[in-house]
């Protein structure tokens, strides 16, 4: 087996972004790279593109919900003097929009709506939020924060990137062929019988299957990297908390994803060969599919949120210049969440199981609140009497504390059997889920991008522009989703294109919120483009961070470090260490460290 040196030769001391002259050579350099930084950057742009696609389908969903669908029959006198009955349907916003560009023939407004929310779910879950933080920011920063030159298996890393692309191609192909309306959960028997003449459902299911491989390989790579490539002197409890979070995430990815692999494979067999495992006509069980599906898809919710929690730990400590409070508690709570995550899948299907099982799953679900609350209290304790710097990453971290608290606390009524009976399958669930996933993960992701942007691209961004974008995102997000808590408690079911008139005001508020949210992200996009094109050169350590990535240059060199780093201080020793590349005058150490 050939083992070419993965980091041999050229550009040893140059920025990882520099490359050979010539467009083709540059493209080939990136397409064939085994450098974790380049792969991370490619992932970053890919997941942001998927976020755009998923976001646009969300905008479409909200647009359809602006007006309820109403059909009115009226009698009119036509030109010939006869009385004619005509039917007018209003409120099918999406159908009119698609009709204007010649699409959506033969589909009703509700059918188009079903496709829109399925695409939104499938793209956001499988192609955006699962790979977003681990594969993009994690790939870039995990090895650097450990003081390594690369991940353990660089070629496997590249392979996982191409598998991701391959999977996304399947998904996009399914959309181009007309999209699917099964919901992102592909529940049987609908997913095995619907749209029987087409390959669209199979393509989307295969996309999720293939993306699973990419996820497994990334997770496997990270676990081995954390075990084997820590810098000399870095024990387990000297690791930044971001690494702990990614480590816990990776364990879930490795252990949960194979189960969705076999589940989706069985679903494809069921659809193509009618093997009957999920088909009650042959003695199979559709609820078995739901158990299998959530056995993966519940743990994967923590794949989505745990890396976000890691980012928050980093941002809060660095931008408040204080040692993180309760380091070990935060580290172990990540592992705790990973452990509990495997035991709570049943709360997605309370009504499909016996009472005893439902009570057990309800009790286990409450356990998740403990490690989550431990994190939350430790973060707030970190902020107490610290030197908070208000900038974009910090704003996003504070936003996270606010929105994620709402997301977490609104989960408790869903874990309670009595209240869940009223709230399940309503907009309350939609609101709760988005407060956790968007108010948690996406907000943390945005914070992380701003925190590490100067390091990744060597350019600063416009602080004012980014703050403006963050403000729009905050207002838009809360307007979009807080209204949905009210809709849900008042009885608006999820996944419906239509509703009674009483709900229209709240639905309209929610839709207007989604537009504000869109404006916020477009402002961020503009700020990023402006930064890449004309940003001020970033210093090596703009925030005074102490983790190893702030010791490299901005952007890092090909090998990350000029010399193999040896760990001399902890990641959060702000009270005793002057940050690398920083002037001690800017970062005065307290006279009595440890005493406030």
């Amino acid at each position, binding site marked *: 087996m050939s*083992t070419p040196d993965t980091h041999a030769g050229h550009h040893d001391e140059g920025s990882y972004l520099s490359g050979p002259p010539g467009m083709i050579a540059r493209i080939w350099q990136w397409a064939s790279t085994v450098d974790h930084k380049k792969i991370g950057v490619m992932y970053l742009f890919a997941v942001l593109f998927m976020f755009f696609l998923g976001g646009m389908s969300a905008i479409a969903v909200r647009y359809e919900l602006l007006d309820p669908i109403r059909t009115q029959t009226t009698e009119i006198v036509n030109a010939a003097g006869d009385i004619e009955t005509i039917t007018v349907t209003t409120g099918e916003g999406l159908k009119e929009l698609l009709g204007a560009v010649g699409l959506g023939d033969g589909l009703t407004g509700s059918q188009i709506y079903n496709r829109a929310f399925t695409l939104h779910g499938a793209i956001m879950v499988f192609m955006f939020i699962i790979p977003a933080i681990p594969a993009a920011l994690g790939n870039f920063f995990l090895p650097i924060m450990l003081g390594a030159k690369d991940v353990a298996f660089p070629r496997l890393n590249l392979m996982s990137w191409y598998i991701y692309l391959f999977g996304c191609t399947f998904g996009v192909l399914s959309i181009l062929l007309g999209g699917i309306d099964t919901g992102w959960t592909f529940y049987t028997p609908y997913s095995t019988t619907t749209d029987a003449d087409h390959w669209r459902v199979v393509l989307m299911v295969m996309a999720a299957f293939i993306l699973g491989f990419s996820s497994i390989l990334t997770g496997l790579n990270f676990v081995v990297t954390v075990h*084997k490539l820590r810098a000399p002197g870095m024990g387990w409890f000297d690791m930044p908390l971001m690494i702990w979070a990614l480590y816990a995430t990776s364990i879930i990815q*490795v252990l949960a994803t194979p189960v969705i692999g*076999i589940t989706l494979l*069985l679903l494809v*067999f069921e659809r193509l060969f009618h093997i009957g*495992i999920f088909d009650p006509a042959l003695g199979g069980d559709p609820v078995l599919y739901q158990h299998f599906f959530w056995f993966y898809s519940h743990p994967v919710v923590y794949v989505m949120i745990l890396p976000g929690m890691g980012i928050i730990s980093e941002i809060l400590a660095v931008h408040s210049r204080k040692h993180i409070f309760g380091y070990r508690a935060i580290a172990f709570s990540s592992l705790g969440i990973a452990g509990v995550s495997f035991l709570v899948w049943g709360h997605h299907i309370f009504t499909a199981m016996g009472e005893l099982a439902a009570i057990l799953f309800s009790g286990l679900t409450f356990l998740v609140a403990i490690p989550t609350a431990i994190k939350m209290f430790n973060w707030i304790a970190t902020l107490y009497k610290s030197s908070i710097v208000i900038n974009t990453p910090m704003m996003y971290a504070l936003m996270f504390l606010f929105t994620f608290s709402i997301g977490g606390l609104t989960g408790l009524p869903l874990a309670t059997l009595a209240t869940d009976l009223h709230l399940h399958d309503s907009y309350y669930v939609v609101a709760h889920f988005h407060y956790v996933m968007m108010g948690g993960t996406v907000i943390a992701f945005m914070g992380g991008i701003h925190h590490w942007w100067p390091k990744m691209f060597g350019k600063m961004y416009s602080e004012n522009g980014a703050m403006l974008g963050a403000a729009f995102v905050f207002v838009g997000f809360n307007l979009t989703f807080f209204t949905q808590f009210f809709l849900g408690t008042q009885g608006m079911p999820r996944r419906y294109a239509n509703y009674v008139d009483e709900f229209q005001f709240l639905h309209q508020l929610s839709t207007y919120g989604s537009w504000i949210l869109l404006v916020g992200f477009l402002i961020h996009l503009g700020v990023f483009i402006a930064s890449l094109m004309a940003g001020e050169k970033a210093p090596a350590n703009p925030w005074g961070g102490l983790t190893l990535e702030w010791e490299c240059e901005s952007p890092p060199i090909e090998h990350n470090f000029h010399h193999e780093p040896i760990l001399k201080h902890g990641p959060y020793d702000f009270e005793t260490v002057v940050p690398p590349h920083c002037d001690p005058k800017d970062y005065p150490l307290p006279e009595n460290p440890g005493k406030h």
Partner: protein
Amino acid sequence: MTMIDTDISGVPARILQSPKHWRNRKHESHWRSGDEEFDAAKFGMWLFLSTEVLLFAGIFCGYAIFRMLYPEAWANGSHYLDWRMGAANTAVLLFSSWTAANAVRLAQLDKQFWLKINLIITIICALLFVFIKFKFEYMAKLPVGKAPGTFFSYPYAQDVHEPLWWSLYYVGTGIHAFHVIVGAILFGVVLWYAHRHQSYGPTQYTLVENSALYWHIVDLIWIFLFPLLYLIH
């Protein structure tokens, strides 16, 4: 890793000077030593094997649930399988696991000729397993209607849920057979590098070791599939 003085007389210069010969191979530059690289590769393989176990866990779980629901169909289904074919395949796989383990040891000892012989036997066993499976099992059953799900048309079925039994039989053994084929390809790659470059020796045998580990898990899964499918009546 074992370090052993090895005899290089008689090895053609073309092979000895190849950068892919085990003496000339170096660890990749992001590792501090070849030992660390080897440990990491092995650790990664173990993690991968745990994903394999979980993949098959889904099938075993489905098997357990439906066997509990339809014990009659399972007992009947098992009657239709020829335990001698299953036993023959078990013997084939166990034997090939032994030759795969041999291959690792022989690479460590730099016995290049016997390394290749053991690899070849392993590959032949893998192909033999797949051959027996397809020729004497699948091809003997499918034409008479012992097929999965709605393809089931066996006229003498005694239980309405037998199609489900066949579904799990074909999915379980089919995915396992796919793993056997992948294993054969993997050993084919090892054999090619062993033959062309003598890439594996006392200091460099990661791929031999990891292929053998993979092979053992494939073997182990069959050890569970065989009694659960063939021997339950």
